[in-house]
């Protein structure tokens, strides 16, 4: 099962993840990423990989558990 993680202290609120995978990521009023879910489906994986890849500060990751 794939689980999404975020380093909230590193996030700068660039929002590339929200554009790549809006069902998984949002940004709060302070400009920090919000994980809308913990586990992702296989269908969501490509978009989440795009989000992880497009984060300018490498704050995001996927872990297979």
């Amino acid at each position, binding site marked *: 099962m794939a689980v999404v993680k975020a380093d909230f202290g590193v996030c700068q609120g660039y*929002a590339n993840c929200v554009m790549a995978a809006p069902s998984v990521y949002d940004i*709060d009023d302070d400009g920090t990423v919000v994980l*809308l879910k913990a586990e992702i489906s296989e269908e969501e994986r490509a978009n989440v990989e795009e989000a992880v*890849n497009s984060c300018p500060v490498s704050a995001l990751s996927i872990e297979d558990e």
Partner: protein
Amino acid sequence: MTPADRSAAVVIVGASVGGVRTAQALRRESYEGRIVLIGAESELPYDKPPLSKQFLAGQWAAERVGLLTEAAAEQAGIDMRLGSVADHLAVAEHQVVLAGGDRIDYDVVVVATGSLARASPWAAESGVHVLRTIGDSRALADDLAKGGPVLVVGGGFIGAEVAATTRALGHEVTIVDPLEVPVGRVLGVEVGALFTDLHHRNGVTTHFGSGVESVEGRAGDLAVRLTDGETLHAATVVVGIGARPNDGWLASSGLLVEDGVVCDEFCRAVDAPEVFAVGDVARWMHLGHGESCRVEHWTNAVEQASCVAHNIAHPDELRSYRPVEYVWSDQYDWKIQIVGRPTRATRHQLIGDLARPTGPDATKPRAVALYADESGRFTAAAIVNWPKALIASRKMIAAGASFDEAVTALRQVAETPPAPARTPA
């Protein structure tokens, strides 16, 4: 000269973010052939945005700006060849020829050589810097450490970031630009003037509307004579007057090169479909804009790398590349993001206030400037310190919203009280 390497490969020339991300994305796309990544610098690949900010300020070490370690390259099966300068491209032979004479065969080559800082037109003995590479950033930091006033030539985003960083380090800072409102070039004069005010509020002197005539002296003791006759003194001068595509090495290739490698909508060179280009050096046909574009932004390099990798790995299902532009800049206590192409706008509207704190906790100013083209479409936005406005703007521009819809939606965002803090689901 060594014999040519005969096994087939994708060869990527350039090991900055566009090249590294193309290599990594090829593996994600299940490309199983050889990947050779050629980098001119002997440094491990590194990321450039922090070089004018956290790295220059000494807050981040070199490891933190790294893009690809030896171990990660080996694990991904990327044959990384650093300190290798590509001399020219032999298109008919399908070979990249290195400066030492070595030839590397390719099935597909990706040109990812980025851009170069425009050199200072003013020669002094020492103490005049440009900022593009990690070496540039280190050399500048060394001079800054000796103290003294800093003069920045160029009031664009690199210049403004250097001014903000050096000001925070305690230097006396002056910015010179021949335009009365430098940021007005991108965002219009009204919004651009707010960026000038930001420098003043942070104790930086601006000398806008006059150019530089000459720079003389040496590090620690430089005299900068302006076109209006005034002479300013500085210990260190930083010249941030733009970049040009690093495409000179392709002059003999026969490829069409016009301010970048000219590519089709799939990012393939128009005269050689086995040659792709990515990042600052690529000039491709953007079908959404109906014209060829070249973009010097980090997010563009990353998104274009994904598209190019897909098109190499899946030549039977080519994707056209038509992104919405996105760039950010951090200056003083402003986090600035620009979406789309405000330079092409015919009108704009500012929502929020950049002169005083207006955010949810009233510690920082926040605003969004919305831009429209002449057909009334919402085409661009500039956002300061306002994450919700950033997301709404990016989504609406991508969806092709009208300017009127955008103004209404962003006013609603402005009136919505902040949500209570959420925790991960």
